[in-house]
């Protein structure tokens, strides 16, 4: 039940209703139906929906060094477009363990062009043979 309320609230806000007003309307409706006890659960379900949505829309570019960020963003440009995003949508993060290259994650896809990934693949190939 709480999931249905949370989804309805999400869609209402997405359609353009002011979030504060939407929550107030929801509270009134819950009171009328005698469902106030569900409010906390609805809050958690809404939070999960927000997290899920962020995962589906957010695109993150992970690079090994801060100074590499712009160059890697250009290098990954085509892949970003393939994901249906633009460079503006991309959030950059630094992870030194990548050694070099880049890793693009978001919208349900992971593209790994990092040196760490390449070296791991080479290592596995060598020990396998």
């Amino acid at each position, binding site marked *: 039940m709480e999931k249905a309320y949370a989804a309805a609230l999400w869609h209402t806000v997405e359609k353009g209703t002011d979030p504060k007003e939407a929550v107030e309307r929801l509270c009134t409706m819950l009171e009328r139906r005698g469902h106030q006890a569900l409010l906390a659960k609805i809050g958690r379900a809404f939070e999960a929906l927000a997290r899920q949505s962020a995962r589906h829309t957010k695109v993150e570019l992970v690079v090994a060094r801060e100074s590499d960020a712009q160059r890697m963003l250009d290098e990954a440009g085509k892949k970003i477009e393939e994901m249906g995003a633009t460079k503006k949508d991309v959030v950059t993060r630094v992870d030194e363990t990548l050694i070099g290259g880049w890793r693009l994650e978001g919208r*349900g896809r*992971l593209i790994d062009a990092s040196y760490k990934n390449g070296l*791991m693949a080479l290592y596995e190939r060598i020990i396998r043979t």
Partner: protein
Amino acid sequence: MESAIVEKVIREIENYTIKTNSHEIGRVTAVGDGVVAIDGLSKAVMSEVILFEEGAGDSLADSMKDHSRLYGLILNLEEDGARATILGDSSRVCEGMTVRSTGKILSVPSGDELLGRVVNALGEPIDGRGAFVKTTMMPVEREAYGVMHRKSVTTPLATGIKAIDAMIPVGRGQRELIIGDRSTGKTTIAIDTIINQKHEPAEKRPICIYVAIGQKESKTARIVAQLKAENALDYTIIVDAPASAPAALQFLAPFAGVAIGEYFMDRGRDVLIVYDDLSKQAVAYRELSLLLRRPPGREAYPGDIFYLHSRLLERAARLSDAKGGGSITALPIIETQDGDVSAYIPTNVISITDGQIFLDASLFNKGVRPAIDVGISVSRVGSSAQTKAMKAVAGSLKLELAQFRELEAFMQFAQDLDKATADRIASGQRMVEVLKQKNGAPIPMEKQVAVLFAAGQKFFADVSVSQVTSVEARFAEFLDDGYEATLLEIKKTGVLSDDSKKALHKAMEEFRAGHGELFAST
């Protein structure tokens, strides 16, 4: 040696091209009891293997230190995600972890390298004898061969157990259920059958696969040692999903076993596969299904429990000549509770298989071993695979034993019985003794024929009941000295010719003359 390795590594590095990998990903939203809920993976398919991204944030050195990858298997596809089972240590998975789609259906390695090895349900070696080098990956889930690719079961698969080979014969490509209470000798029959295959010529010898599901590790270790001691491990593969393994691996083990077997069948080889036991697999599948929140049905088993066993056992087949003529013979084992064959899982598997060998606890406790209840044991297709020699000596055996069981109750009124009934009881008692057999001592077909022929000729009629087993064993040994040619002829032709009969009559007379003291019970 070292320079060769260095050269090899240099070659690998020189030829290596860095690839940009693109994968569909999802995120673990909940984890517990070996099952994960995943958000994302919208293009995942059923039974697809997924990879848990454990090394994110770890340095290259740390990632190389622990390079064993953790995989999962998609088992539920849902509106906004998927549910999967973890094929390994579930404590390595945490909420928020990235999960990567591999686009591959679960496969296990198969090939000649696996012979004599012990592998887990994922086909990974667990016997400490090193990794496999050259194997072929076989899909764990595969559609069984259709009717046009099959042919009828006509070649016998000798179990080496007199009672089975004579009355409930098994053919190559058949599915014969071994069913009975705990500790009634189910595994013994299966292992004896594997051991008996050493009597087959190497080119016709089936590859044997023993799948241990939910068994104690000590029991599996004992079986491996027994097979090794009997020189049967060289043509056997052990797939082990012990009681301590996650339910997912116990559920997958039989499918992994049959996938390994299909490699050999597709290459024209005969395969014998033992599933020990499917009751435990059903319990593991029930556990998994409940954790996956599938609706429970009868005895809390999921609705597709019949399909689980039918799709597994349908993969046992005898292929047509066009497909190479290979076969998979399945010996599934089911454990009953208090002899109840009408329970849910036993009835399911009875209806799927081509017959059953029922082991009776009361017979076992009376010392009748193997404790086969001939009355309700049946082989639906095996008789057409029986050799002519065996047919000739075992034709009326089942009827005779059934009649004996009917009359057995009157044994306590022995003094009041008419002569015909008393004779029939005496004959039945001796026949039961003849069919007794020690475990781990399968008997080749030709010797079985000789012994049963002798029993049919009332050879043991003058032997006291308690002596029959030892006289029978001594007679079998006696045949080895001087009658090898007769035994060889029966083995080669599969027929009990008039000459062979004459020779066996002569052997009986000679044995009787030489062991007069044993034939004085009357």
